[in-house]
């Protein structure tokens, strides 16, 4: 089985992705992570304005079979949370790097992004 690992993202070992767009960092979980979890049925996200810390849990994702924390790839302030996931949590399975995104963060320190795994490093980790 081959998992999608987009080149324009950086990754946490705990299977979150981070993509920088116009100075904000969009965050979600990877294709590998959604496959491991199976059918996602519930996502609990922080509110806009909340602070998140790098590698700190910022939310919870539940599939039929498991509960898992979601960790922030960067520190900063939440500027958006994907409210569509409240009613359509299955988007995390269907489109983990697109419509299944979770939060956007205004990063405190962009240099944190450089210590995240590259696509190649993340691929090595899961294979």
């Amino acid at each position, binding site marked *: 089985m081959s998992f999608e690992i987009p080149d324009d993202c950086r990754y946490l070992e705990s299977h979150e992705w981070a993509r920088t767009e116009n100075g904000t960092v969009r965050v979600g979980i990877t294709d590998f992570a959604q496959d491991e979890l199976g*059918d996602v049925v*519930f996502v609990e996200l922080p509110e806009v304005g909340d602070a998140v810390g790098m590698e700190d849990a910022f939310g919870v994702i539940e599939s*039929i079979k498991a509960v898992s924390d979601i960790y922030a790839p960067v520190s900063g302030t939440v500027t958006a949370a994907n409210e569509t996931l409240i009613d359509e949590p299955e988007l995390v399975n269907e489109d983990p790097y697109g419509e299944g995104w979770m939060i956007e963060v205004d990063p405190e320190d962009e240099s944190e992004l450089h210590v995240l795994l590259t696509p190649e490093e993340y691929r090595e980790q899961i294979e």
Partner: protein
Amino acid sequence: MSLRTPPVSHDAETTDFGGWEMPVEFDSIRTEHEAVRERVGKFDVSHMGEITVSGPDAGRLLQRLTTNDASVLDPGEAQYAAITDERGVMLDDTIVYRLPEEDDETYLFIPNAGHDEEMFDRWVNHREEWELDATVTNRTEEYAMFAIQGPDSPDLLGAQTDVDLPTLSRMEVTSGTVAGVDALVAYTGYTGEQGYEALVPWEEAGTVWDALDCQPCGLGARDTLRMEMGFLLSGQDFDPEEEPRNPFEAGIGFAVELDTEFVGRAALAGVDAEGPEEKFVGVRLEERGVPRHGYEVQNTDGERIGHLTSGTMSPTLGEPIGLGYLPAEYAGEERSVRILIRDEPKKAHTTTPGFLP
């Protein structure tokens, strides 16, 4: 200790369940669950134990170790029963089959995954203690067991068996062939749908599995299907160590025949007379979230009143459901409660432990 493996190698994600490496998910739990509710699915449940008991005292031995009345079984009939200790605490639950067309009385009972050796020892030890004449054999790795479940199961299995399925009643077992392989076929299951369970020789399991042309399902869907029906899971909804419960608390008093003599009877007669203090109930969450095993249940004043032993997002209802033990007054009518999820009390209400309309 290495895990025991089923007779067929499956292309599926697996999990350790009762010491067995079993398929948990072939495609997705939701896909597999829906196949069983709407069409038909097949499960490899070869982790279930098989123990046969035969000989002149076979019936007496079963009668004294199971809570139900084994003496009413005619050849080809089956019954659900609990196995209790002297305190009336459930060690396991099981289906007891009286096998068809046997010259002498032969029974087969099905302990849950990982309980076969313990139950075999229990039967042998009591046979010695009571000086009964019965042959007890653990056949767990002689029989593969497949469940074929769902509204289309009569057609799907019917095409592969010489058993006349329409004449087989619920809780009956007969012998025949499936895909040309000698089999015991029973009208039993754990999903709430019409369905069958087939026992076939371990070595020929692959032939039978491959001939059943339908959605393969793992333990994940088996779990969500049984939770929607409020069926107990041994080792989780009751367990002699972690969750010691008697059959009346667990809601299976219908499988206890106090007029028979069995280990635990005296204790259970006391429970029956006074009524259990706690009962197995269903809960439906009214807010977003997923109830899970171990979550605390509170009354509307925020006081702890019990806990959940199972829970999930019901694939059929699209709503969160849970099962657990609460004070008896919470059973029988809808009562408001709270479920503590990550320290947040969420609104819920009690129901009977069966969620489908």
